[in-house]
Protein backbone atom coordinates (compact mmCIF):
# COMPACT_ATOMS: atom_id res chain seq x y z
CA UNK A 1 0.00 0.00 0.00
CA UNK A 2 1.46 3.32 -1.08
CA UNK A 3 1.25 6.51 0.99
CA UNK A 4 -1.11 8.05 -1.59
CA UNK A 5 -3.39 5.07 -1.13
CA UNK A 6 -3.55 5.81 2.57
CA UNK A 7 -4.52 9.37 1.81
CA UNK A 8 -7.22 8.48 -0.66
CA UNK A 9 -8.58 5.75 1.61
CA UNK A 10 -8.75 8.34 4.38
CA UNK A 11 -10.47 10.90 2.22
CA UNK A 12 -13.02 8.35 1.03
CA UNK A 13 -13.68 7.18 4.57
CA UNK A 14 -13.94 10.81 5.67
CA UNK A 15 -16.53 11.47 3.00
CA UNK A 16 -18.56 8.51 4.12
CA UNK A 17 -18.52 9.76 7.66
CA UNK A 18 -19.53 13.20 6.49
CA UNK A 19 -22.46 11.73 4.54
CA UNK A 20 -23.57 9.76 7.56
CA UNK A 21 -23.32 12.89 9.71
CA UNK A 22 -25.45 14.77 7.21
CA UNK A 23 -28.16 12.22 7.78
CA UNK A 24 -27.86 12.38 11.53
CA UNK A 25 -27.30 16.02 12.35
CA UNK A 26 -30.37 18.23 12.40
CA UNK A 27 -28.85 21.63 11.66
CA UNK A 28 -32.14 23.55 11.87
CA UNK A 29 -33.02 21.93 15.16
CA UNK A 30 -29.55 22.66 16.46
CA UNK A 31 -29.89 26.28 15.50
CA UNK A 32 -33.18 26.50 17.38
CA UNK A 33 -31.51 25.05 20.43
CA UNK A 34 -28.67 27.51 20.11
CA UNK A 35 -31.06 30.42 19.80
CA UNK A 36 -32.99 29.28 22.84
CA UNK A 37 -29.92 29.00 24.98
CA UNK A 38 -28.62 32.36 23.83
CA UNK A 39 -31.88 34.11 24.58
CA UNK A 40 -32.14 32.33 27.90
CA UNK A 41 -28.82 33.73 28.98
CA UNK A 42 -28.89 37.16 27.36
CA UNK A 43 -32.44 38.29 28.00
CA UNK A 44 -32.43 38.48 31.78
CA UNK A 45 -29.10 40.23 31.98
CA UNK A 46 -29.39 42.77 29.22
CA UNK A 47 -32.90 43.12 27.92
CA UNK A 48 -34.48 44.31 31.12
CA UNK A 49 -31.95 46.99 31.91
CA UNK A 50 -31.30 48.28 28.44
CA UNK A 51 -34.25 49.82 26.72
CA UNK A 52 -33.02 48.68 23.37
CA UNK A 53 -35.11 49.30 20.30
CA UNK A 54 -36.06 45.75 19.62
CA UNK A 55 -36.36 44.70 23.24
CA UNK A 56 -38.22 47.75 24.44
CA UNK A 57 -41.62 46.32 23.84
CA UNK A 58 -40.97 43.09 25.60
CA UNK A 59 -38.67 44.60 28.20
CA UNK A 60 -39.48 47.56 30.34
CA UNK A 61 -42.75 48.42 28.74
CA UNK A 62 -43.82 44.85 29.16
CA UNK A 63 -43.11 45.13 32.86
CA UNK A 64 -44.92 48.43 33.14
CA UNK A 65 -48.02 46.93 31.64
CA UNK A 66 -47.88 44.17 34.18
CA UNK A 67 -46.96 45.99 37.32
CA UNK A 68 -49.96 48.20 38.11
CA UNK A 69 -51.74 45.13 39.46
CA UNK A 70 -48.78 43.81 41.28
CA UNK A 71 -48.41 43.94 45.00
CA UNK A 72 -45.58 42.36 46.86
CA UNK A 73 -46.03 38.71 47.63
CA UNK A 74 -43.50 36.79 49.58
CA UNK A 75 -41.84 33.58 48.76
CA UNK A 76 -41.43 33.65 45.05
CA UNK A 77 -38.01 32.23 44.73
CA UNK A 78 -37.46 29.03 42.94
CA UNK A 79 -35.49 26.60 45.01
CA UNK A 80 -33.50 25.37 42.07
CA UNK A 81 -33.11 28.39 39.88
CA UNK A 82 -30.48 31.04 40.19
CA UNK A 83 -30.21 32.36 43.71
CA UNK A 84 -31.87 35.66 42.95
CA UNK A 85 -33.49 37.23 45.96
CA UNK A 86 -36.11 39.88 46.04
CA UNK A 87 -33.96 42.46 47.67
CA UNK A 88 -36.19 45.30 46.62
CA UNK A 89 -38.10 44.78 49.82
CA UNK A 90 -41.73 45.74 49.74
CA UNK A 91 -41.72 47.11 46.22
CA UNK A 92 -44.74 45.88 44.39
CA UNK A 93 -43.02 44.89 41.20
CA UNK A 94 -40.21 42.96 42.83
CA UNK A 95 -41.82 39.60 42.40
CA UNK A 96 -42.83 40.23 38.85
CA UNK A 97 -39.48 41.66 37.99
CA UNK A 98 -37.85 38.59 39.40
CA UNK A 99 -40.17 36.36 37.42
CA UNK A 100 -39.54 38.38 34.36
CA UNK A 101 -35.79 38.45 34.72
CA UNK A 102 -35.49 34.77 35.30
CA UNK A 103 -38.01 33.41 32.87
CA UNK A 104 -39.37 35.84 30.31
CA UNK A 105 -36.59 35.31 27.80
CA UNK A 106 -36.89 31.60 27.46
CA UNK A 107 -40.66 31.74 27.87
CA UNK A 108 -40.89 34.12 24.95
CA UNK A 109 -38.79 31.87 22.73
CA UNK A 110 -40.94 28.96 23.82
CA UNK A 111 -44.15 30.90 23.19
CA UNK A 112 -42.92 32.01 19.78
CA UNK A 113 -42.58 28.39 18.81
CA UNK A 114 -46.06 27.65 20.12
CA UNK A 115 -47.61 30.49 18.19
CA UNK A 116 -45.70 29.74 15.03
CA UNK A 117 -43.72 32.98 15.24
CA UNK A 118 -46.64 35.32 16.01
CA UNK A 119 -44.87 37.76 18.26
CA UNK A 120 -47.89 39.62 19.59
CA UNK A 121 -49.65 36.44 20.58
CA UNK A 122 -46.44 35.08 22.05
CA UNK A 123 -46.05 38.17 24.20
CA UNK A 124 -49.65 37.80 25.36
CA UNK A 125 -48.98 34.21 26.30
CA UNK A 126 -45.88 35.19 28.27
CA UNK A 127 -47.69 37.99 30.05
CA UNK A 128 -50.60 35.77 30.97
CA UNK A 129 -48.25 33.04 32.12
CA UNK A 130 -46.25 35.35 34.35
CA UNK A 131 -49.41 36.89 35.76
CA UNK A 132 -50.67 33.46 36.68
CA UNK A 133 -47.36 32.61 38.26
CA UNK A 134 -47.50 35.81 40.25
CA UNK A 135 -51.07 35.09 41.35
CA UNK A 136 -50.01 31.64 42.47
CA UNK A 137 -46.80 32.89 44.04
CA UNK A 138 -47.68 31.57 47.47
CA UNK A 139 -48.05 28.11 46.02
CA UNK A 140 -44.99 28.26 43.82
CA UNK A 141 -42.62 28.78 46.67
CA UNK A 142 -42.99 25.18 47.74
CA UNK A 143 -39.61 23.51 47.61
CA UNK A 144 -38.87 20.46 45.57
CA UNK A 145 -39.67 21.57 42.08
CA UNK A 146 -38.53 23.91 39.40
CA UNK A 147 -40.55 26.85 38.34
CA UNK A 148 -39.72 26.93 34.66
CA UNK A 149 -41.28 23.60 33.68
CA UNK A 150 -44.48 24.69 35.34
CA UNK A 151 -44.36 28.06 33.60
CA UNK A 152 -43.88 26.33 30.29
CA UNK A 153 -46.77 24.00 30.94
CA UNK A 154 -48.98 26.97 31.66
CA UNK A 155 -47.70 28.81 28.59
CA UNK A 156 -48.46 25.82 26.43
CA UNK A 157 -51.94 25.52 27.84
CA UNK A 158 -52.64 29.19 27.29
CA UNK A 159 -51.29 29.06 23.77
CA UNK A 160 -53.14 25.92 22.78
CA UNK A 161 -56.33 26.74 24.66
CA UNK A 162 -56.18 23.65 26.85
CA UNK A 163 -57.68 23.85 30.31
CA UNK A 164 -55.28 25.42 32.73
CA UNK A 165 -54.66 23.68 36.02
CA UNK A 166 -55.78 25.68 39.01
CA UNK A 167 -52.57 25.04 40.83
CA UNK A 168 -49.22 23.58 40.14
CA UNK A 169 -49.57 19.94 39.19
CA UNK A 170 -48.23 17.67 41.83
CA UNK A 171 -47.03 14.12 41.76
CA UNK A 172 -49.61 11.39 41.51
CA UNK A 173 -50.20 9.63 44.80
CA UNK A 174 -48.70 6.24 45.12
CA UNK A 175 -50.34 3.99 47.66
CA UNK A 176 -47.88 4.19 50.50
CA UNK A 177 -46.03 7.25 49.25
CA UNK A 178 -42.82 5.34 48.78
CA UNK A 179 -42.18 6.64 45.29
CA UNK A 180 -42.84 10.22 46.31
CA UNK A 181 -40.48 9.86 49.24
CA UNK A 182 -37.82 8.30 47.06
CA UNK A 183 -38.28 11.07 44.50
CA UNK A 184 -37.62 13.62 47.16
CA UNK A 185 -34.23 12.08 47.72
CA UNK A 186 -33.15 12.36 44.11
CA UNK A 187 -31.07 15.16 42.79
CA UNK A 188 -33.23 18.03 41.43
CA UNK A 189 -32.20 17.31 37.84
CA UNK A 190 -33.17 13.66 38.15
CA UNK A 191 -36.45 14.50 39.80
CA UNK A 192 -37.38 17.09 37.22
CA UNK A 193 -36.76 14.78 34.31
CA UNK A 194 -38.84 11.96 35.82
CA UNK A 195 -41.68 14.30 36.62
CA UNK A 196 -41.76 15.50 33.03
CA UNK A 197 -41.42 12.16 31.31
CA UNK A 198 -42.98 9.59 33.60
CA UNK A 199 -45.38 11.46 35.82
CA UNK A 200 -46.69 13.94 33.29
CA UNK A 201 -46.44 11.46 30.45
CA UNK A 202 -44.60 13.79 28.13
CA UNK A 203 -42.69 12.52 25.16
CA UNK A 204 -38.96 12.98 25.17
CA UNK A 205 -39.28 15.75 22.60
CA UNK A 206 -41.87 17.59 24.65
CA UNK A 207 -39.84 17.25 27.80
CA UNK A 208 -36.81 18.55 25.95
CA UNK A 209 -38.73 21.64 24.89
CA UNK A 210 -40.15 22.20 28.34
CA UNK A 211 -36.84 21.83 30.10
CA UNK A 212 -34.89 23.61 27.42
CA UNK A 213 -32.53 20.68 26.97
CA UNK A 214 -31.28 18.72 24.00
CA UNK A 215 -33.36 15.63 23.26
CA UNK A 216 -30.35 13.37 23.74
CA UNK A 217 -29.76 14.83 27.16
CA UNK A 218 -33.35 14.20 28.16
CA UNK A 219 -33.02 10.63 27.01
CA UNK A 220 -29.85 9.91 28.89
CA UNK A 221 -30.98 11.79 31.98
CA UNK A 222 -34.25 9.88 32.07
CA UNK A 223 -32.36 6.65 31.99
CA UNK A 224 -29.98 7.75 34.73
CA UNK A 225 -32.76 9.22 36.82
CA UNK A 226 -34.73 5.97 36.65
CA UNK A 227 -31.69 4.10 37.85
CA UNK A 228 -31.23 6.54 40.66
CA UNK A 229 -34.90 6.21 41.60
CA UNK A 230 -34.65 2.45 41.59
CA UNK A 231 -31.62 2.61 43.81
CA UNK A 232 -33.36 5.01 46.16
CA UNK A 233 -36.45 2.78 46.37
CA UNK A 234 -34.39 -0.28 47.03
CA UNK A 235 -32.46 1.38 49.79
CA UNK A 236 -35.59 2.55 51.51
CA UNK A 237 -37.17 -0.87 51.44
CA UNK A 238 -34.32 -2.34 53.34
Amino acid at each position, binding site marked *: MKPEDVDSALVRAGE*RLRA*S*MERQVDVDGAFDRLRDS*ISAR*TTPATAVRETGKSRGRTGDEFLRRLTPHAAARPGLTDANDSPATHDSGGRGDAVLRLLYEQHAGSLLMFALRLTGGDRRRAEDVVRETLLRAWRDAHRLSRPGGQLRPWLMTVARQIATGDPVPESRPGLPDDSDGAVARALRHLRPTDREILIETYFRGRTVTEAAATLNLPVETVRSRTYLALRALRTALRQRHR
Partner: protein
Amino acid sequence: MGDLAEDPDIDEAFEKFFRAEFLSAVTTLVTSGFTRPAAEDAILAVLADAYEQWSAIIHPRAWVRKAGYREALRRQRRDRDGLLRTARIAPREISDQCPPFDGQDRILRWLGQLPERQRQVVALHLDEFTYDEIAQILDIRPGTVRSTHRSARKALRRIIERERRDEAETREDR
Protein backbone atom coordinates in the same frame (compact mmCIF):
# COMPACT_ATOMS: atom_id res chain seq x y z
CA MET B 1 -34.67 34.32 12.08
CA GLY B 2 -33.67 37.54 13.74
CA ASP B 3 -34.27 38.47 17.32
CA LEU B 4 -30.95 37.24 18.57
CA ALA B 5 -29.35 40.54 19.28
CA GLU B 6 -29.75 44.25 18.91
CA ASP B 7 -27.35 44.27 15.98
CA PRO B 8 -28.92 42.54 12.99
CA ASP B 9 -25.57 42.32 11.18
CA ILE B 10 -24.05 40.17 13.88
CA ASP B 11 -27.16 38.04 13.85
CA GLU B 12 -26.89 37.46 10.19
CA ALA B 13 -23.18 36.70 10.22
CA PHE B 14 -23.64 34.40 13.18
CA GLU B 15 -26.45 32.44 11.62
CA LYS B 16 -24.67 32.24 8.30
CA PHE B 17 -21.58 30.91 9.98
CA PHE B 18 -23.63 28.41 11.92
CA ARG B 19 -25.39 27.02 8.89
CA ALA B 20 -22.18 26.80 6.92
CA GLU B 21 -19.99 25.32 9.62
CA PHE B 22 -21.99 23.44 12.22
CA LEU B 23 -22.03 20.10 10.45
CA SER B 24 -18.33 20.27 9.61
CA ALA B 25 -17.33 21.29 13.09
CA VAL B 26 -19.38 18.47 14.60
CA THR B 27 -17.86 16.04 12.11
CA THR B 28 -14.37 17.15 13.06
CA LEU B 29 -15.09 16.47 16.72
CA VAL B 30 -16.58 13.10 15.87
CA THR B 31 -13.55 12.26 13.79
CA SER B 32 -11.44 13.22 16.79
CA GLY B 33 -13.26 10.64 18.89
CA PHE B 34 -16.38 12.17 20.45
CA THR B 35 -19.90 10.85 19.96
CA ARG B 36 -22.20 12.87 17.77
CA PRO B 37 -24.47 14.13 20.57
CA ALA B 38 -21.46 15.10 22.67
CA ALA B 39 -19.93 16.91 19.71
CA GLU B 40 -23.16 18.75 18.95
CA ASP B 41 -23.66 19.82 22.55
CA ALA B 42 -20.10 21.07 22.87
CA ILE B 43 -20.20 23.10 19.66
CA LEU B 44 -23.55 24.60 20.62
CA ALA B 45 -22.29 25.48 24.07
CA VAL B 46 -19.21 27.33 22.88
CA LEU B 47 -21.20 29.15 20.20
CA ALA B 48 -23.75 30.28 22.74
CA ASP B 49 -20.90 31.60 24.89
CA ALA B 50 -19.23 33.30 21.96
CA TYR B 51 -22.36 34.88 20.60
CA GLU B 52 -22.03 38.19 22.38
CA GLN B 53 -18.43 38.69 21.34
CA TRP B 54 -18.93 37.17 17.95
CA SER B 55 -17.44 40.04 15.98
CA ALA B 56 -14.26 39.88 18.10
CA ILE B 57 -13.44 36.37 16.94
CA ILE B 58 -11.03 36.66 14.07
CA HIS B 59 -10.87 33.08 12.84
CA PRO B 60 -14.23 31.62 13.78
CA ARG B 61 -13.77 28.40 11.82
CA ALA B 62 -10.59 27.52 13.66
CA TRP B 63 -11.81 28.93 16.93
CA VAL B 64 -15.02 26.91 17.05
CA ARG B 65 -13.09 23.68 16.58
CA LYS B 66 -10.52 24.54 19.18
CA ALA B 67 -13.00 25.71 21.78
CA GLY B 68 -15.40 22.90 20.89
CA TYR B 69 -12.77 20.27 21.48
CA ARG B 70 -11.89 21.71 24.85
CA GLU B 71 -15.54 21.96 25.82
CA ALA B 72 -16.27 18.39 24.72
CA LEU B 73 -13.37 17.15 26.84
CA ARG B 74 -14.54 19.18 29.81
CA ARG B 75 -18.07 17.82 29.50
CA GLN B 76 -16.88 14.29 29.11
CA ARG B 77 -14.96 14.59 32.36
CA ARG B 78 -17.83 16.28 34.13
CA ASP B 79 -20.37 13.71 32.96
CA ARG B 80 -18.13 10.89 34.01
CA ASP B 81 -17.70 12.39 37.47
CA GLY B 82 -21.42 13.07 37.70
CA LEU B 83 -22.27 9.52 36.76
CA LEU B 84 -19.91 8.14 39.33
CA ARG B 85 -21.59 10.24 41.96
CA THR B 86 -25.17 9.57 40.88
CA ALA B 87 -25.13 5.84 40.46
CA ARG B 88 -22.68 3.09 40.05
CA ILE B 89 -22.77 2.60 36.34
CA ALA B 90 -20.29 0.69 34.31
CA PRO B 91 -18.68 2.64 31.45
CA ARG B 92 -20.28 0.25 28.98
CA GLU B 93 -23.71 1.34 30.04
CA ILE B 94 -22.84 4.96 29.62
CA SER B 95 -21.77 4.57 26.04
CA ASP B 96 -24.91 2.55 25.35
CA GLN B 97 -26.88 5.78 25.73
CA CYS B 98 -25.97 7.08 22.34
CA PRO B 99 -24.69 4.43 19.99
CA PRO B 100 -23.24 6.81 17.45
CA PHE B 101 -22.33 4.61 14.53
CA ASP B 102 -23.03 1.17 13.25
CA GLY B 103 -19.43 0.22 12.69
CA GLN B 104 -19.58 1.15 9.05
CA ASP B 105 -17.57 4.23 9.71
CA ARG B 106 -14.18 2.88 8.90
CA ILE B 107 -12.49 6.13 9.61
CA LEU B 108 -13.58 6.08 13.24
CA ARG B 109 -12.39 2.51 13.56
CA TRP B 110 -9.04 3.49 12.11
CA LEU B 111 -8.52 6.74 13.93
CA GLY B 112 -9.64 5.16 17.17
CA GLN B 113 -6.38 3.26 17.18
CA LEU B 114 -4.27 6.42 17.02
CA PRO B 115 -3.13 8.63 19.88
CA GLU B 116 -5.26 11.70 20.53
CA ARG B 117 -2.90 14.23 18.96
CA GLN B 118 -2.54 12.26 15.73
CA ARG B 119 -6.28 11.82 15.55
CA GLN B 120 -6.82 15.56 15.92
CA VAL B 121 -4.30 16.38 13.21
CA VAL B 122 -5.86 13.93 10.78
CA ALA B 123 -9.37 15.17 11.58
CA LEU B 124 -8.42 18.80 10.98
CA HIS B 125 -6.47 17.91 7.87
CA LEU B 126 -9.51 16.14 6.44
CA ASP B 127 -11.43 19.27 7.34
CA GLU B 128 -9.08 21.08 4.93
CA PHE B 129 -7.15 23.17 7.40
CA THR B 130 -3.55 23.98 6.51
CA TYR B 131 -0.65 22.90 8.70
CA ASP B 132 -0.26 26.46 9.94
CA GLU B 133 -3.90 26.66 10.91
CA ILE B 134 -3.80 23.26 12.58
CA ALA B 135 -0.74 24.42 14.51
CA GLN B 136 -2.70 27.37 15.83
CA ILE B 137 -5.74 25.33 16.71
CA LEU B 138 -3.72 22.74 18.60
CA ASP B 139 -1.20 25.20 20.06
CA ILE B 140 1.79 23.37 18.63
CA ARG B 141 4.46 24.30 16.07
CA PRO B 142 3.77 23.78 12.35
CA GLY B 143 6.75 21.44 12.17
CA THR B 144 5.21 19.32 14.88
CA VAL B 145 1.95 19.20 12.95
CA ARG B 146 3.85 17.97 9.92
CA SER B 147 5.71 15.25 11.80
CA THR B 148 2.60 14.21 13.70
CA HIS B 149 0.72 13.91 10.45
CA ARG B 150 3.53 11.83 9.00
CA SER B 151 3.47 9.45 11.96
CA ALA B 152 -0.31 9.24 11.78
CA ARG B 153 -0.24 8.28 8.11
CA LYS B 154 2.42 5.68 8.76
CA ALA B 155 0.36 4.17 11.55
CA LEU B 156 -2.81 4.33 9.48
CA ARG B 157 -1.12 2.52 6.66
CA ARG B 158 -0.37 -0.38 8.97
CA ILE B 159 -3.87 -0.29 10.40
CA ILE B 160 -5.58 -0.24 7.01
CA GLU B 161 -3.34 -2.93 5.60
CA ARG B 162 -3.97 -5.17 8.57
CA GLU B 163 -7.69 -4.63 8.28
CA ARG B 164 -7.69 -5.47 4.60
CA ARG B 165 -5.71 -8.62 5.27
CA ASP B 166 -8.18 -9.65 7.94
CA GLU B 167 -11.08 -8.95 5.63
CA ALA B 168 -9.50 -11.00 2.87
CA GLU B 169 -9.00 -13.85 5.26
CA THR B 170 -12.61 -13.87 6.37
CA ARG B 171 -13.53 -13.59 2.67
CA GLU B 172 -15.58 -10.49 3.18
CA ASP B 173 -13.78 -8.82 0.38
CA ARG B 174 -15.02 -5.43 -0.61
